[in-house]
């Protein structure tokens, strides 16, 4: 337990020192969401119709901005090698890195989402499901991103490759997450997509750390 918490604590300490890194994705969301009424017209009904999907897509895009940071900084200063060389299981170290990444980038997205919802006239009944779906979905973004980050951490210009690799992995999350908010805004039950989303999260927790660990080991060969 102790190495796990130590790793998370270290990453949080480092992350909180550079607060701008936490705000950037949120500012990005604000900038982009402004484009929608400017492009579509300010009609409340149109915006409310597309609000669930747009909020989720913005969350996805904002996450993409930060995904490479999961392992890149540690690779550049040699920390990743120490994760591999210690006797502490690599998948658990990976899990710790994913948790700290989510706390620093995914959680702020969840907490910030109601503001985006207000800007897009999201029906008031939907905010609960919106935040719940993002709460379950953003960790999955971090999990999927960890594979891409572990693979591209040694590359100079790995950003585009990371996006290409990670997008198909994020697609099901978007499908279920956006559907949940759409359904609740139509007055239906959002339980089915939320359950499917939770299933994806559990699958990710159990399988992804091993895949990311494999990518790290291959990279360090």
């Amino acid at each position, binding site marked *: 337990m102790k190495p796990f918490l130590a790793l998370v604590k270290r990453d949080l300490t480092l992350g909180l020192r550079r607060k701008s890194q936490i705000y950037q994705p949120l500012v990005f969301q604000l900038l982009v969401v402004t484009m929608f009424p400017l492009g579509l017209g300010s009609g409340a009904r149109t915006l409310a119709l597309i609000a669930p999907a747009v909020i989720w897509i913005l969350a996805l895009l904002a996450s993409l901005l930060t995904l490479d940071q999961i392992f890149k900084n540690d690779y550049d200063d040699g920390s990743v090698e120490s994760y591999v060389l210690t006797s502490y299981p690599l998948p658990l170290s990976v899990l710790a890195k994913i948790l700290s990444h989510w706390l620093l980038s995914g959680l702020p997205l969840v907490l910030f989402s109601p503001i985006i919802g207000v800007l897009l006239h999201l029906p008031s009944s939907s905010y609960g499901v919106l935040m719940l779906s993002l709460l379950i979905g953003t960790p999955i973004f971090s999990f999927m991103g960890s594979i891409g980050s572990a*693979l591209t951490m040694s*590359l100079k210009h790995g950003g585009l490759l990371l996006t290409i690799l990670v997008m198909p992995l994020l697609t099901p999350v978007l499908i279920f997450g956006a559907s949940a908010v759409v359904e609740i805004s139509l007055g239906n039950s959002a339980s089915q997509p939320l359950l499917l989303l939770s299933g994806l999260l559990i699958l990710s927790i159990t399988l992804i750390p091993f895949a990311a660990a*494999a*990518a790290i080991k291959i990279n360090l*060969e």
Partner: protein
Amino acid sequence: MHKQRTNALVRFYHKLGSPPSFYRISGYFLKWLLLLAIGLTTWGLYDGLVLAPADYQQGDSFRIIYVHVPAAWMSMFIYAVMGVCGVIALIWRMKIAEAVMLASAPIGAWFTVIALVTGSLWGKPMWGTWWEWDARMTSELILLFLYIGIMATYSAFSEDTRKAARMAALIAIVGVFNVVIIHYSVQWWSSIHQGSTVSLTGKQNITWDMLRPLLFMAFATKFYYGYSMLKRARIYLLETESNKRWVQDIIMEKKS
């Protein structure tokens, strides 16, 4: 007697796993694979374009299935082959598995593109639009991204081909899981968004005269895949073993 049989099997496995043997053995098959591919394609297309009766609902446009469906089948079959090779390449570090996996990617991507483009060309007279986000087409498009991802991964690690191949293998394995999840999630999504219930092969009862050319084309595309994949695998082996004696002997033999 049992020992003899086991030894032969072990010997065969080792022979197949060694690059020079693979190169030599696959060389024997190349000509036949190409001939079978061309022959079956010729007959299959004649059968499909001339002999098969026109569909009473779709008219002659249904004949597009004779390239669309085999291409779609191959795109999925080849991806599965790449996944299996990826597992073998990562766990047992077999060079042949790496070669087969990487050699399958380009032709697999082509089949995916053909499936998408011919699906669009079939859809226009049927649905009236050049594109429809139904479950199958959407999944096929994402499959194309997965193929591109594998090829992009391999080329990104340009300095170390061994590392590049292993990374590509990992992505191929992750991709197989991903394809299954995407298939079910897209199917779920399209089932709750009614409007995309049109399926390209909605035929329940397909007559033998209409099915037969499809089977010919299915086999034809498999044989061409075999030819293309083995050729590329051999090229990959020549390239990555170029400092070995067996490669140099082969280069010296053929002065063409």
